[in-house]
């Protein structure tokens, strides 16, 4: 099964790697492709929110993609604050978001 945002056909790049991995994020099971980063595997499944901010409990996702901003940090197999953008997703990983959604009703802008 090709995940929501996976680019299976590409005009220049070759075929996708086909070896699948299975992992868990916040209690739900997902499939990724071997070689995925944790952030790419989750985004392929349409998951953008990777944690909630410390102060206001707002959702946060991947930002810089190079391990500098730490916006994508999460708990990986019990180890807290691992950067999802530069950590490879592995078969059997148990991933958990950090923080909790504490937003009150807020305006879009």
């Amino acid at each position: 099964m090709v995940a929501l945002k996976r680019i299976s056909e590409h005009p220049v790049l070759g075929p996708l790697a086909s070896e699948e991995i299975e992992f868990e994020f916040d209690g739900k099971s997902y499939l990724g492709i071997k070689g995925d980063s944790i952030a790419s595997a989750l985004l392929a499944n349409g998951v953008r929110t990777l944690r909630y901010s410390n102060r206001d409990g707002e959702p946060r996702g991947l930002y810089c993609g190079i391990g500098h901003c730490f916006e994508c940090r999460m708990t990986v197999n019990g180890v807290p604050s691992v950067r999802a953008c530069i950590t490879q997703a592995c078969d059997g990983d148990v991933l958990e978001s950090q923080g909790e959604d504490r937003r009150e009703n807020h305006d879009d802008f």
Partner: protein
Amino acid sequence: MISDVVVIGAGPAGLSAAVAAAEAGAKVVVIDENPRPGGKLLGQLHEEPGTGWWIGADVSKALAKRATDAGVQILTNRQVWNITPGWEVFLDNGETVCARYAVVATGAAERPIPLPGWSLPGVMAIGAAQTLTNYYRVRPGDRIAVVGVDPLSLTVAHELSMAGADVVGIYLAPRNVFSGTLSDPDRNLQYLAGMSELAPNAFLRWGGRLAANRAFRNLALTFYPKFGLPLMGTRLNLRKSIVAIGGNDRVQHVEIATVDKDGNPGKTRIVDVDCVCISGGLYPVQELTKGSEMAKIDELGGTVPLYSPEMETSQENLFVAGNVTGIEGAKISMAQGTLAGTVIGSRLGLIHNPEAVDTASAAVRAARKSSAITFMPDIEQGRQIADDLWTQLEQGKTVAQKDESFA
């Protein structure tokens, strides 16, 4: 761990330095915090005039293979916490790597452009979108707006549309305390003039050449098409900026303002998107060259270590290569890395050809000359400033030594 050479960063510069030194017979260790070698080269994908598609993932793989074939040990998933003269490199797992020569090839990072709503999931740096799309093969969004006009954002916008995303447009940054000249239509048009050779359609190429002229820019901006210029599957808007990003728990829309030719915002409207890519430009990542003589040179992208024609910093046996020295393309980084590795190989007494270093220096100059993309419009002035400062430093050193002998 003891080695002849320790290289920090397994991108194009670091791998090339490692290959040059290891193929000469040196023992080399490369350290990188990413799960695999390649750095930002992994996500690159563009068509080059005359030579076809540049697929960064393939180039990375070939370079890494060449390195390991030459005996280079590549330590991935390892962060460097400190480096001290000698040279000793401290890793996050408590290990250290000791080597007579060190090469800092830590590359660049992106400058953000903060704007209202930019912390929502779905807003990301343009480089993050590039790696997701071309390396991980995941679409960052289905309808994407790009903020910031520069060679990287134009290239990635094209890559996103090739991957099936609807790129609604490339827009100016909003005028705020962070964006500086990125919000100024005239500065952006001037910038485009510097990349006219790369411009993918005739109109922009024509416009790009004329944009070097101030009077033409004024005219072009006054009559700039309301709906932007068509460009590689998207639209380039020099008279619109994204002033806010909105959504409940993720990006759902952007607020786009029309701006006059001086960059003042006017009417706004809402456009639905699910992803916003921010391109604020790149700066050299130079923390690990601490202790070396540094200079802030905006034409190169920020603060950089000064270095000799042999890529050595003011600290003995500490070398630099790649974007840590200024923002340029991967091919130039590779040539710089090869030069650093060749110099080290010679100093170790492993390279006996007296012309090897000159050949490697000439290759850096050739790579610059044939570069298809110029990231920094005034890069040549920047290089000149850096070279002049190095010369002054050398003269200063001589003066200081004289003073000491006098004392």
